[in-house]
């Protein structure tokens, strides 16, 4: 079978789960998403919208209600679990805590669909495992127990396990949850490289929207008012990112490419200056809810210089040595 041919198509798919009473609960309806090899796709949507359910369904863990999941033209329903294990690998949010399990052994689990009945590794299997460990940058960690490595390292090991499974499709449920910022970027970068160089289809769910917007090739957006798929940039231009949150306080700033918190303005401030001091002074004022104005009519005027900040208000002038002091003065009740 040709590996570069695994197109995934969700057609009019409706997913959900059986409730304890036996009533089916549909949570995502009429989804039409697709992914092609070499693409890194991020599924985004608010908490509880059904991202995990969709990924679990896609991975073949649970049945769906209606519609179709096609993998290179075949219905997922007609592919048995052993074959699915050679097409798709899965990385979940579950923390693997197995005493006495080394990183090598964990990654070697990826060879499971290929080994004999007692799971003996062949020379080929071992070289695939070594290669996978190298690809995620965990050389030298082979003999370390998985219980004694950091969360970021363990997530890499889980990704290496998926790589060792040698599947054209890798599905990851929130691979960057619980990681610190630099690890989040590294995991995204690693996945991007895998998608591009190894032509794998990588589908992940995430809440790290700022990183996803910069790194992924395609967004699958699930909202209450419909679903979207396409390049992240098209999603911004079409206003889909503002649809993500139901509440009125969070918005998406299309100019900055960032989410922001909507605030009531306290006062009007005119800011002068340039370079980084200006940029970060604006941010501080923004954070505290001051409206930045250009025109003559304002409550305060701030001049941001290299190491000092001047505040002019109703003829009085004060100088501060840091943004912190400036903000502290502004916030002090007069």
């Amino acid at each position, binding site marked *: 079978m040709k590996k570069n041919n695994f197109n995934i198509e969700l057609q009019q798919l409706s997913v959900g789960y059986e409730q304890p009473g036996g009533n089916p609960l549909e949570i995502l309806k009429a989804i039409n998403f697709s992914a092609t090899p070499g693409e890194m796709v991020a599924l985004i949507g608010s908490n509880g919208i059904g991202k995990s359910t969709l990924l679990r369904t896609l991975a073949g863990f649970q049945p769906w209600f209606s519609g179709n999941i096609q993998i290179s033209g075949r219905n997922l329903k007609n592919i048995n679990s052993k*074959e*699915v294990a050679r097409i798709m690998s*899965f990385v979940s949010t579950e923390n*693997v805590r197995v005493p006495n399990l080394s990183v090598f052994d964990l990654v070697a689990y990826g060879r499971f*669909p290929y080994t004999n009945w*007692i799971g*003996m*590794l062949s020379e080929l299997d071992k070289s695939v495992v070594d290669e996978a460990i190298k690809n995620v940058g965990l050389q030298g960690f082979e003999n370390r127990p998985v219980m004694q490595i950091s969360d970021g390292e363990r997530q890499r090991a889980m990704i290496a396990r998926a790589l060792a499974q040698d599947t054209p499709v890798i599905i990851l449920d929130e691979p960057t949850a619980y990681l610190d910022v630099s690890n989040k970027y590294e995991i995204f970068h690693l996945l991007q490289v895998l998608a591009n160089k190894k032509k794998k289809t990588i589908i992940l769910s995430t809440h790290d929207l700022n990183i996803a917007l910069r790194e992924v090739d395609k967004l699958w957006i699930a909202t209450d008012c419909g679903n979207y798929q396409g390049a992240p940039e098209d999603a911004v231009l079409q206003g889909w990112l503002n649809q993500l949150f139901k509440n009125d306080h969070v918005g998406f700033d299309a100019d900055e490419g960032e989410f922001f918190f909507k605030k009531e303005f306290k006062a009007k401030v005119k800011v002068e200056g340039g370079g980084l001091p200006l940029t970060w002074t604006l941010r501080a004022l923004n954070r505290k809810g001051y409206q930045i104005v250009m025109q003559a009519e304002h409550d305060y005027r701030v001049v941001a210089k290299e190491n000092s900040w001047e505040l002019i208000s109703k003829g009085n002038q004060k100088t501060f040595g840091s943004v912190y002091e400036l903000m502290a003065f502004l916030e002090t009740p007069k």
Partner: protein
Amino acid sequence: MKESVPHKKLPVALIFSLLGILFVLLFVADILLGSIIIPVKEVFYSLFSTSETNETYRTIILSFRFPKALTAIMTGAALSLSGLQMQTVFRNPLAGPYVLGISAGASLGVALFVLGFSSVLAAGIFTTTGAWPLALVAWAGSFLVMLLVLFVSMKVNDIMTILILGILFTSAVSAIVSILQYFSNESMLKAFIVWTMGSLGNVTKAQLSVLAPAILTGILLAFLKIKDLNAFLLGENYARSLGVSIKTSRIIIFLSTSLLAGTITAFCGPIGFIGIAVPHICRVIFKTANHLILVPAVILTGSIVMLFSDIVSQLPGMQTTLPINSVTALIGIPVIIWMIVKNKKFVSVS
């Protein structure tokens, strides 16, 4: 996965050899020691030659000590192996062979038989019929529970639900057994209490011919599922994503466990703590999570621990024997306490 770390390979073989030697020594010691201490040469005479044997020794060895030692080996192997499987499938270090309610089912069978029919049966019936009736009702009880568990596990996906149902079922059965005890006469009550204390010595050669094939089948099933057991360590989602058919696999593992623990409980009574403690002892000795090593390791170590318990219980040179259940508890509980204290930090994290 065993071969993944080459420098570990030698110790594994070495540990198995040392355990093997220990096993042989304890097996011989278990036959020699007891209320009557038998000289080593008599064992060989009675096993391999017919002429020069002291008839008393020969009878003791062939009719009592030898079947008892074999029973000890099978008991240790079976309970430890079913404990290992339960700990892996439920991903719970405190799971044991009885979490599915197998021992409760056996107890209910025995209690209903001994206590429920106490008015109908003549006292002392067990001295005339041997252990057969008890073994059969215990077996029936544990297999009924097994069928119930298999039925539930086909319907219920969540492994924790199965665990909780097993615990609840065990509690319900103890309640019924308590009621039966309350209304039964003294001699029958004693017969029941004696059964709950466990005994390796009541198994006759005829019963061994039932016990052995059942245990071997259970062990065989466990060997067939070594690879799936490894996958279960990562949790069911990962197991499924690796191509394991969860329900089929779980049913075969439950079948193996029930066969192993159910049969032993039927013939020897509910013997506690071995099934929980031995898998942990093996993980510490072998420092591995791979069932390719752990399955044979628990079989061997379980046999060793049980042979040792049996030697202790028959108090060499004295006329009395201790209940085997008390001995295994005294050996097993310290291990479990040690494990809980050692794992405390992991428990508090999650």
